[in-house]
């Protein structure tokens, strides 16, 4: 194997790939340099009414009853175990029918603090559901990044089953 030749070809492939990648994404790169994606890649920094929280804060808000939990995972995963009292609003269903994510549908006042969570590894689900909840009128939404996996691992209270089944 000719290492010099391979190195040259590799450099050429990388150059051919990276030039359009940068040129076609200058807008995103500018936003990155401004710090827009420091907290979340899918929600711009400083999005009104949305904050990211960890396990400790989620646990405190659960204990004090100061927040309403929203589970963004599919219904079967919710039924296997969820935060006690959490409402199931699967992203897929809410995307197709946004009426499922309104204050009326959840029977919660719009200014109530919501904590949205998913399975923990894929926080994109929560972020996308948060967009829908904001548009439906909720003004104070927190995304629990660790999600169900972290909640369960911490030994926090859990509830199984679903009324919707």
């Amino acid at each position: 194997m000719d290492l010099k030749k391979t190195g040259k070809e590799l450099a050429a492939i990388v150059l051919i790939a990276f030039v359009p990648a940068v040129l076609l994404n200058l807008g995103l790169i500018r936003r990155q340099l401004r710090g827009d994606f420091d907290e979340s890649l899918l929600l711009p920094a400083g999005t009104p009414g949305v904050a990211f929280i960890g396990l400790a804060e989620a646990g405190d808000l659960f204990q004090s009853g100061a927040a309403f939990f929203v589970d963004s995972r599919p219904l079967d995963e919710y039924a296997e175990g969820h935060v006690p009292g959490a409402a199931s609003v699967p992203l897929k269903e809410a995307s197709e029918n946004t009426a499922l994510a309104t204050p009326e549908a959840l029977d919660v006042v719009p200014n109530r603090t919501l904590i949205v969570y998913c399975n923990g590894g894929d926080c994109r689900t929560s972020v996308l559901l948060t967009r829908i909840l904001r548009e439906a009128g909720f003004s104070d939404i927190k995304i629990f990044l660790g999600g169900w996996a972290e909640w369960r691992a911490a030994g926090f209270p859990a509830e199984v089953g679903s009324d919707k089944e």
Partner: protein
Amino acid sequence: MIRNRAVLFAFSLIVGGVFVWAAVLKIRDPLAFAQNIANYRIVCNLIAFWIGLLLPWLELAAGVFLIVGLWRRTSALLLSTMLAGFIVLVAVTMVRGIDVDCGCFGSLSGKANLGLIIQDAVLLFMSLTVFLSKADPIRLIGKKS
């Protein structure tokens, strides 16, 4: 070692095709792919952003070159390295118990699980075969090496 030129071309077409398809799906929404990378919880958002921006284009370029036969062995080496990296990443994620979408095919991605490791291993076998084979597969452009 496989020397049949048609088989080597078929391997190039399959591996290159999968990478081109995957790249196009990810190039359409680089932020969503970057979020997928961040979900593995190995790199920070800044690094995930740049990987999300650059990796799909590298997959596209290497995939196209592998299919057309230009810089074939180097492209196969590059794609093999990526596949080996993906296998290690998914295995580590499974061991850590993180339930995550693989992010491989944009919004069409499945879970990062054993099935994905097997799928990547099959592709790795094909790309390594193309890389290591002394025979020159059928090529669409470029001179014979």
